[in-house]
């Protein structure tokens, strides 16, 4: 690409705006809604024609839900998915919806589960053509053969069942099926995660070739950084339903602006990277998406966490839970807000122990610094943290955004 100033930016193929998907958690015989799993929580991005957008994150970050919303498999709770010049796909009229359906296809992770075991290859790959009455009879057979040849298979495979193929071949069949209607966008949900490296390379090459020949756009969902680095033009990193960083792939890899991106890279370095640099992981587990942490959602595991990252009452409970028996004798927690609460104990001594613990060196210093008020009255302790809102994405460079409160320079060197 030339460095000359971009002409008027082309209209994106897909526009996702403030997309939110909450799943209700139902309880009891009356199926009362007890809360919501916030799988995707206000995510916006664009996909341009012919580009690959990589979507990375760990399990539970909402990347699969997001992919399914984009593909129209799941209705959205709020926000919009706009395809081409049409409006939100949830409000399309039937003719427009049909056009969207043809233009946006999907390839799934499990090639075995995504192919009907009772259908022959010709039925599997030819089905979209039948649905849209594009071809039948011999013409259909020829179209299917053509599609199979494009994915490196052939006429000899027409009359076989999915179980007669290897994983790589099955994934080729899925891709051929997705190509049948000549779509402009394909959502690829972990298309190579179940495959061995040598087969993965075949499939990745195939996907690249197809993209070049047909100017396809991909939404490439994966947890594998090396794959996404190889395939994607731009990158969206998600954590607990929100985007933590997005930008051009190389920019993000060369200069990650969010500690989570950094952690992902440290945990799984490139095969070509220096083998003597030790891999580094993260402590703790991903919090419950039904009650995501306040402020920056990553603050519970962040290695460079600051007092401004959204410390809350839950963090006290979480920390004490991990540190032993300080919570012994706790008789109740009164939560006035996420940042303000009162811990009541059975005896004054136990309350004093909590107060001491919170003032001591054992408490993570950023958490201590975030305390606005810490007061003990008899057997109860009042804890108030400074209130912090959701951390927004901020500009870090050309088309490069990250949602972190830290100064970019501080993220570079992890302690």
């Amino acid at each position, binding site marked *: 690409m030339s460095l000359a100033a971009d002409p008027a930016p082309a209209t994106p193929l897909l526009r996702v705006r403030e997309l939110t998907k909450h799943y209700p958690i139902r309880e009891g015989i009356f199926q009362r809604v007890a809360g919501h799993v916030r799988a995707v929580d206000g995510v916006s991005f664009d996909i341009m024609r012919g580009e690959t957008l990589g979507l990375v994150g760990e399990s539970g970050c909402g990347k699969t839900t997001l992919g*399914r919303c984009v*593909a*129209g*498999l799941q209705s959205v709770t709020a926000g919009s998915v706009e395809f081409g010049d049409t409006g939100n796909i949830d409000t399309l009229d039937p003719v427009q919806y*049909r056009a969207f*359906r*043809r233009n*946006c*296809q*999907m390839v*799934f992770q*499990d090639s075995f*589960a*995504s*192919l*009907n*075991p*009772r*259908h*022959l290859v*010709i*039925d599997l790959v030819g*089905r*979209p053509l039948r*649905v*849209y009455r594009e071809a039948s009879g011999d013409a259909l057979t020829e179209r299917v053969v053509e599609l199979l040849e494009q994915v490196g298979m052939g006429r*000899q*495979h*027409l*009359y*076989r*069942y999915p*179980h*007669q*193929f*290897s*994983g790589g071949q099955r994934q080729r069949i*899925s891709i051929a*099926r997705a190509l*049948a*209607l000549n779509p402009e966008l394909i959502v690829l949900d972990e298309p190579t995660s179940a495959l061995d490296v040598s087969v993965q390379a075949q499939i990745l090459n195939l996907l690249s070739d197809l993209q070049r020949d047909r100017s396809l756009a991909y939404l490439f969902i994966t947890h594998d950084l090396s794959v996404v680095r190889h395939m994607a033009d731009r990158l969206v990193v998600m954590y607990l339903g929100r985007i933590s960083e997005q930008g051009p792939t190389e920019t993000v890899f060369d200069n990650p602006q969010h500690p989570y991106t950094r952690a992902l890279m440290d945990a799984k370095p490139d095969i070509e990277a220096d083998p003597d640099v030790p891999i580094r992981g993260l402590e703790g587990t991903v919090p419950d998406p039904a009650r995501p942490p306040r402020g920056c959602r990553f603050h519970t595991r962040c290695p460079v966490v600051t007092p401004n990252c959204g410390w809350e009452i839950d963090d006290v409970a979480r920390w004490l839970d991990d540190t032993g028996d300080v919570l012994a004798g706790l008789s109740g927690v009164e939560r006035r807000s996420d940042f303000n609460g009162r811990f009541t104990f059975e005896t004054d001594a136990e309350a004093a122990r909590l107060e001491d613990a919170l003032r001591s060196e054992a408490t993570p210093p950023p958490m201590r610094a975030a305390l606005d008020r810490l007061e003990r009255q008899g057997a109860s302790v009042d804890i108030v943290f400074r209130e912090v809102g959701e951390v927004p994405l901020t500009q870090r460079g050309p088309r490069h955004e990250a949602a972190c409160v830290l100064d970019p320079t501080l993220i570079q060197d992890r302690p």
Partner: protein
Amino acid sequence: MVDFPPSVRHRGATPRPLENATGVRLRRAGDLAKRLLSNPTTVFGLILIAVMLLIAIFAPWITDPNTPDPYQMPRDWGAVRMPPGTPGHILGTTNEGGDVFYGIIWGSRTSLQLSIFVVGSTVVIGTIIGSLAGIMGGWVDEVLMRIVDVFLSIPELIFALAIAAVLGPSFTNIIIALAMVIWVKYARIMRAQVIQVKQNEYVDAARVMGDSKLNIYLRDILPNAITPVTVQATLDMGNVVLIGATLSFIGLSEAGIAEWGVLVSEGQAGIASGRWWASTFPGLMIFLWALAFNLVGDGLRDALDPRTEGR
């Protein structure tokens, strides 16, 4: 678990590609038949069923049909309580002079009717209701399944007995009573299957390509969900006759009808006085009928097991 390389697992099934979809499908059916026939007990069951069917089909040629209604036992009041081997009454006669041999031959037709009507109607009803509950989910599922629970909470025999008693004693009413009792079983099985199958990604894949809901149900969900229903239906072909005979035995069928349960009932009074034949032969037929379908049902279950398919 041993991970065979994919090539080992998959190539075995394709010695050579057949360039024709019908050919491949036929071969798949052939494979199923081959697996089914590789089990000796299943073959035995199939032979039994075949013999029963032949008897039912050729009943008018085996014994002269009774007039006006061939399903009524002919009464030979001159030859009551005759032992087996009596000329003209090869298996003997009952207290009322009914020919046991005639009852057995024509009873196979009655049993076949009972099995086909009961199982046929309940499979259709159960599949539709189970599918509706499984696909729609939500309150539709709640309502339908609570109804099913009510039916299931009463023991089948007692329930059928109650219905037949209310409707009055007749063979048709036995069919109705059994159908009302049995459909819930299929609804249950089908619902569970549909819920499981619809989570498969190939259903999502069909939605992504924009296929209609009906098509998705007919092409993706139903064919992959129906297998256990088929097996259960085969087993029930036998079991229904067993329960039907019980109801007839208690007297909920029309008296004098050529039906195995009725015959057993008619003959049981004589057992104590040594006239074993009037109950034993029809009882044996009931046993063989139920056994045959159970053997084939079990064989079918094994043959349709996805773990053995494609090997």
